[in-house]
């Protein structure tokens, strides 16, 4: 159903084991007026270990629902969502989820926020303190460890949330438009930081965005979803070496290509709705 376009002539890397898999997943919600709305329909895709996958699609196409299913916050109505071949039944510290809202706990200091996740894992107090400190150093917030979240700037809050999510060493990092509410400059800085962290840790990464440039800048693979009910319609494998630049011809081309594809999809959906 989906086609994969190699964008440069680089030999395909040895395929790594499948980490996350969606098999014929369907999900619908009941609206306030009682009508059933299908959000996902027969969605099938795999994410391999250590892969950075971006999901992109028109708004309302069920991108966030895919993440919630992977996080275990919701259950599919049909099909199966699996981690390492085992169905995902509930949330767990092996999968971290970043939201558009950093969702830091306002009653805890920045340090305590990072320590919170570690404490849940049942680590010893020395280890908790050391791990939290090292993560705060990694996101350059050591000087703000004892400050309350509301005293941080927007970008700093996102970095704190990143430290909190990664401190537990999750195998999978899920992100739901984490920089959606930030200005373009801050967004770019955080993207670079995220990429750095990802290269260092080698986590499997599923990133939802509606920003095409962001997706192409970060991902190994971009999956384009159709309008509601969402399902993958196109897939781009981006093997350009990192760090990427938007001046790179291949990167620029694929950005244009995805934009065109999305525009076509949005127009198609609008026609179907009779707009």
């Amino acid at each position, binding site marked *: 159903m989906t086609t994969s376009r190699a964008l440069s002539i680089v030999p395909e890397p040895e395929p790594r084991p499948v980490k996350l898999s969606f098999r014929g997943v369907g999900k619908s919600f009941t609206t306030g007026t009682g009508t059933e709305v299908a959000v996902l329909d027969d969605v099938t895709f795999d994410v391999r270990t250590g892969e950075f996958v971006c999901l992109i699609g028109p708004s309302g196409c069920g991108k966030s629902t895919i993440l919630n299913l992977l*996080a*275990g*916050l919701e259950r599919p109505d049909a099909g199966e969502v699996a981690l390492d071949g085992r169905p995902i039944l*509930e*949330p*767990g*510290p092996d*999968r*971290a*989820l970043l*939201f558009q*809202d950093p*969702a830091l*706990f*306002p*009653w*805890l200091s920045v340090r305590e926020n990072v320590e*919170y*996740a570690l404490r*849940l*894992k049942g680590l010893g107090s020395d280890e908790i303190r050391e791990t939290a400190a090292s993560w705060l150093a990694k996101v350059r917030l050591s000087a703000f460890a004892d400050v*309350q*979240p*509301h*005293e941080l700037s927007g970008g700093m809050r996102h970095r704190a949330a990143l430290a*909190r*999510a990664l401190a*537990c060493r999750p195998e999978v990092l*899920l992100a739901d438009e984490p920089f959606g509410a930030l200005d373009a400059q801050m967004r770019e800085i955080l993207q670079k930081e995220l990429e750095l962290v990802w290269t260092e840790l080698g986590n499997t990464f599923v990133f939802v965005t509606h920003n095409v440039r962001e997706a192409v800048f970060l991902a190994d693979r971009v999956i384009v979803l159709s309008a509601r009910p969402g399902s993958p319609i196109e897939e781009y494998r981006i093997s350009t070496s990192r760090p990427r630049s938007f001046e790179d011809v291949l990167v620029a081309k694929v950005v244009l290509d995805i934009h065109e594809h999305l525009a076509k999809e949005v127009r198609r959906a609008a026609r179907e709705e009779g707009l």
Partner: protein
Amino acid sequence: MSTSRRRCGALHAKRVFDRIWPRVALLATILLVWWAVYETGWIDPSKLPSPADVWNAFTSNITGSDGLLPAARGSIIRLAFGLSVAVVVGTLIGFAMVASVVVQRSVGTLMTALQALPSIAWLPLAIVWFGFTERAVMFVVFIGGVPAVAIATAISIRQVPPTLIRAARTMGAKGWTLQRTVVLQACVPGYWTGLQQAWAVAWRALLAAEIIRVGAARGLGHLLEASLLQASAEDTAMLIAVMGVIVVIGLAIDSFFSVMDRRIRSKRGLLVPA
């Protein structure tokens, strides 16, 4: 550095002054008008004694068996006891309202209904049940405080931002750990507002009960009622003095709640800087 510290001190002094002068000014104005009215002699001194008479009534009635101090102590102990029980029971009811839709629809509606009923309206029934006893006073304080606490508990828990709960769940928090570390922390500001309302309701219910001579030990309400008997100038002065004491105690308790409230909110960034 010493200059900056001195400037800091001066700034602090100015801030304290800014906070205090409107209150002092209002109090002075009230006293001045009161005194002026008294001096004109239009009003019978047995109806409106001078501020000095009230001050005398206050200073000469502080101690002694019918004094203000034992009465204030009696009222405060009653309030503390009745309110404590109301807070414990109200909080538990609030939790149950959140946990179960059936409880919300039944007991939750009852709580709203109780809030519509002034707690003083319970007094006759409380006297029928318990007589003019301490238990009747406690009951009225209790029944006044419970709905406020229960409703505030339920609302504050329902208003915990879902994103915080989702964040905690993705980090592996669930069950009691999730409740304790997130829900019970996030609901504190709203809960505290509920306590602030509850104490005021309970305090008014308590004084009302005392005024109609319910309860064995002396309270401020009893003193109000006792001062009503002869309606002499001295008694009226005492009446106003007791009212003043009630107001001052109320302000003191309220400022405790307000200071704590400000602390809770400023830590969470919920305080809009003035």
